[in-house]
């Protein structure tokens, strides 16, 4: 999908005044935050489990080539095929070629973030293949022509009345006066609309939450059952998976599954966890005739070699989004790409390039909540700061900001000069401020002083005052607040 993260600032301004968005986001965080807290409290071993999961991921990333090879060999032994794609062009073309090879005209899709990353739907559509999203949230946003605003709850930016309107204009063959005012009615309507579509599709495309090297299996985790209908009823099953989803063994998957659902929705286990290992076997009464796994790099091997390596531990649980105050107030679309929230702030510049996502790593309150709830303890604030530093190094930040920062760093590394200058500045400012002791305008920070006054410094710099105070004052309690 096209990246519009360079418009981040403008996107935020639109988002913060959107009342529908505000209402919808409140409901999401209101539901998911307490759910996770409850699930974590219910498992005393949760922290040990996190450490175990992290150790598995670190080991796997260190041996990722070996495990991917083992996975490939087992998929082939199971009767499936593996395709390797270095970038998004290659991945899209490979999937299109597979569709042509199997004479595919219509495709049903399970929810998959990597196919969003590839902009696969638009591409297939342009080449005469009709993709139909079957996850309820994805179905809704496909009808609206939108991208997902959350990695596991793609339509979370919408309120019920908006979904009702979408269905009213899309399902014109239904009675105009049908009841549509509950979540139940809307869910049922989508169920009926999609029911016959799974079996009629020539191919089912799903993502993968994990891949298991030991058995050559891909895993999807869902609550709705649409992903399983998609992959069981279509003639061909194509799995699209980014390469860091690989895990060595089934037991490793068990550890990750325990972390995933609890961190995501607060469930102990999602409703459906399915291992797919090849096409239908001899004698089987159902299942696809062909099984393909398209493994996508698209920037991951670069991350593996770089400073964003830790981000490859991400299991896409969405806990960091659900607990982020910035995400909660601006929603997912403002981030300009398919990944949003704290994980998106690191992933988008890492995968799409820093140039495309200049403001993203900067837009953080650095409150640290994301790292705290991340089951993989990914140091998201640190990674954002790294990306910021890279921006400055690569001269991507505005000139004014760079000059100011380099001046400050030159000063900060020369304490004597720093003290001299700040002392001089403080005294000068104090004198310039006059009797009111405030500035109603300042060069460089005009925007700031437009609506407030800047209080002039008094009584010298911190160091001046510190030195004055190092002679203990008899009877004083050494509390600066008493001054």
């Amino acid at each position, binding site marked *: 999908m096209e990246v519009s993260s360079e418009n981040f600032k403008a996107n935020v301004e639109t988002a913060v005044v959107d009342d529908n968005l505000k209402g919808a986001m409140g409901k999401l965080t209101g539901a998911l935050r307490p759910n996770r807290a409850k699930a974590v409290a219910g498992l005393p071993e949760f922290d040990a489990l996190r450490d175990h999961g992290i150790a598995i991921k670190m080991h796997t990333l260190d041996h990722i080539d070996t495990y991917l090879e083992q996975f490939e060999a087992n998929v082939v032994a199971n009767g499936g095929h593996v395709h390797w794609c270095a970038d998004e062009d290659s991945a899209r073309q490979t999937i299109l070629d597979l569709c042509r090879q199997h004479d595919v005209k219509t495709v049903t899709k399970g929810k998959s973030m990597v196919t969003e990353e590839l902009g696969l739907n638009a591409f297939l559509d342009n080449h005469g293949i009709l993709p139909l999203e079957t996850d309820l949230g994805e179905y809704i946003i496909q009808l609206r022509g939108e991208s997902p605003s959350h990695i596991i709850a793609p339509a979370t930016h919408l309120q019920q009345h908006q979904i009702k309107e979408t269905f009213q204009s899309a399902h014109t063959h239904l009675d105009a006066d049908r009841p549509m005012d509950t979540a139940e009615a809307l869910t049922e309507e989508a169920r009926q609309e999609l029911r016959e579509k799974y079996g009629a599709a020539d191919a089912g495309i799903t993502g993968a939450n994990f891949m298991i090297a030991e058995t050559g299996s891909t895993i999807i985790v869902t609550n709705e059952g649409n992903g399983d209908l998609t992959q069981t009823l279509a003639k061909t099953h194509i799995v699209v998976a980014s390469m860091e989803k690989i895990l060595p063994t089934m037991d490793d998957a068990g550890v990750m599954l325990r972390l995933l659902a609890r961190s995501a929705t607060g469930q102990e*286990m999602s409703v459906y966890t399915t291992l797919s290992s090849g096409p239908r*076997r001899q004698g089987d009464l159902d299942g696809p005739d062909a099984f393909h796994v398209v493994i996508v790099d698209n920037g991951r091997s670069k991350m593996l070699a770089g400073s964003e390596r830790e981000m490859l531990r991400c299991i896409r649980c969405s806990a960091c989004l659900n607990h982020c105050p910035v995400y909660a107030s601006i929603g997912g679309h403002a981030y300009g790409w398919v990944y949003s929230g704290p994980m998106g702030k690191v992933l988008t510049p890492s995968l799409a390039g820093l140039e495309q996502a200049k403001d993203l790593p900067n837009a953080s309150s650095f409150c640290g909540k994301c790292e705290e709830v991340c089951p993989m303890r990914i140091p998201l604030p640190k990674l954002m700061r790294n990306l910021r530093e890279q921006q400055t190094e690569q001269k991507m930040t505005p000139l004014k900001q760079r000059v100011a920062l380099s001046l400050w760093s030159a000063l900060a590394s020369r304490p004597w000069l720093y003290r001299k200058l700040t002392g001089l500045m403080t005294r000068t400012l104090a004198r310039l401020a006059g009797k009111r002791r405030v500035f109603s305008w300042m060069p460089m920070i005009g925007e700031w002083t437009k609506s407030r006054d800047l209080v002039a410094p008094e009584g010298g710099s911190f160091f001046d005052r510190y030195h004055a105070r190092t002679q203990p004052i008899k009877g004083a309690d050494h509390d600066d607040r008493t001054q």
Partner: protein
Amino acid sequence: MTGRNDRAEIFARLKAAQDGRLKAPHPGGMTPPKSAATKGKAMVTHFINKAIAQYATVTELDRFADVPGFMSDWLRGQNLPKEFVLAPILSGLDWAKETTITPRPGAATTADTVGVSLAYGAAAETGTVMMISGHHTPTTLNFVPDVEVIVLSKKDISAGMEGCWEKLRAYKTQNPMPRAVNFVTGPSRTADVEATMVLGAHGPRRLHIVLVDETSPWPKST
């Protein structure tokens, strides 16, 4: 040939990224959390409680031979159609004596309202059943009918997922890996409309688990 083949390029990059790195060891397996009951009656009770918490309903029977009679009563009691699709592995039970119901062994279609299948394992920790694909137990039974009935032997319940993996590994020594392994925890649901939970999204609206004391009729070679 499909697309470009980027295999060599990708592996060269992966290997280069690993060069000179100290490699982390594998942390080994793990035991199921202590919070789950791990043995005997307590484990079965734990399974039942967890399954019910996930909106499944549960019946306990002594023998597999009791399943046809139960189905006959249950379908009538729930006001469900008397025709249903049945996993072929259960067609050996004496269905003929239940004259009011008509099981159809095979895979499920969208015309089927009720499906009945047999689980291969279960995890008490989360109230999850493990289904495997194959001609004995077609996968469509788990997803297509509105009402899913799963028969499970209490002897096939493990404390956590680890026990399920063990069972799968044992199965794999005699058979190829099943095409699909489905872990099912309650009926299908969604929260995509304003984070409100609704049961019956695309998969089954209801899940009924029939727990049987006896050993399950899985053939020895499986």
